[in-house]
């Protein structure tokens, strides 16, 4: 965390970041669901949509703290780890033939990344209330990760040739 972000790290600012994180995660899963719809990957589309609904529920819960979508500019605290907020699925990690197991593995990475981010905050944030809140969030993200992991364990491993397309876009 930079000294600049540290000075802005109030409880209210932290809630704003949390809301932005959940909102963007929901939007991104919705976007990925839409991409999978277009490519007729119905099972993965349904899974991404389910993940979007869960993240949206988290965002609505945080909205009770008075945050509005337009007021958020998530460029400070949580963004310091990479290009996007820690729970936002990267757009370049999808494939039109991906399986539900791939989608859950991606969601697991996102939850674990968010947990690591909050764990760091729980140690380094200057405000004691933010540290407490971050620790709670870290525990919650770890719970989500465990839920996804148990669901992932019930799915069959993707076959080795999961991306084999009988009518591929590539010339060979």
């Amino acid at each position, binding site marked *: 965390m930079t000294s600049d972000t540290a000075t802005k790290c109030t409880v209210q600012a932290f809630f704003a970041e949390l809301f932005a994180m959940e909102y963007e995660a929901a939007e991104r899963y919705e976007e990925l669901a839409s991409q999978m719809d*277009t490519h007729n990957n119905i099972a993965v589309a349904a899974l991404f949509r389910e993940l979007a609904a869960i993240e949206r529920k988290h965002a609505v819960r945080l909205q009770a703290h008075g945050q509005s979508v*337009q007021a958020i500019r998530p460029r400070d605290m949580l*963004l310091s780890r990479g*290009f*996007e907020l820690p729970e936002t699925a990267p*757009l*370049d990690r999808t494939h039109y033939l991906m399986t539900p197991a791939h989608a859950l593995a991606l969601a697991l990475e996102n939850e674990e990344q968010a947990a690591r981010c909050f764990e760091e905050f729980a140690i380094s944030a200057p405000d004691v209330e933010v540290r407490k809140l971050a620790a709670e969030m870290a525990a919650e993200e770890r719970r989500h990760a465990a839920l996804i992991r148990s669901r992932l364990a019930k799915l069959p491993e993707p076959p080795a040739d999961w991306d084999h397309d009988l009518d591929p*876009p590539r010339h060979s």
Partner: protein
Amino acid sequence: MNLVIAPTPLSANDYKSDYKPVWCPGCGDYSVLLAFTKAMAQLQRPPEEIAVVSGIGCSSRIPAYTNCYGFHGVHGRALPVGTGLKVARPELTVIVAGGDGDGFSIGGNHFLHACRRNIDLTYIVMDNRVYGMTKGQPSPTTEPDWDSALAPGGTGLRPFHPLVIALASGANFVARGFSGDPNGCADLIVQAVKHPGFSFVEILSPCVTFRPDQREWGKMVHSASVNPTDDPARAARRIMTDDGFNIGVLYAGCRAPYQPQKAASASMAAIEAEFAI
């Protein structure tokens, strides 16, 4: 009592159309679309005051996916259309968008002259160094040793360097972004639109289908460690010597944009009189 209701600010979703993109999942162009909508929301320009003009190619589908006015034009000719539109309707925010093949090969000459004219518009090129729509031929920006079924052993040709050429041709704003950083790209687009004159934004936008090696770009890009300069010579040195993965604003010049007078310089009768036999 007159009740004054404050208008609701426009959000990124207000700039999206109902058409769903048909790009391959994983394509960088999804991020560019997201960056574009975020940028327009930051600028708060109503969609009807924005025109998105494109040529042909995967990335040139972008106007259909926005809620702004759009023109999906002829291959390589997006810049002439955008130029004409901006000259005729200077009050519009004109964004021209497309790919590296459309912009630097088929439209290469238009690119030079659009930079030179310095009309106040923004040109976004989604550069994936390949012709994706036509199944993976090398483009002007493809590395010389990129070995593929359609170019065995690579082309062996020196790649086109869009940023240097834009600078040398007179573009007034030169930036490079990476699609994996949609927030950063949105910032670059905002700065490009606000900067007077011809603004060129190259966005490295991987084609995961024909260039799966480009998935590594996320690990290679890095922020430009220096502030933008208004000195073209200094900018040229920086751009010529960087590794091609330096992202940020690299040049912000102060050349006045070209905007011809809209008013007719002669009456129709006077023109007809010149041709009278």
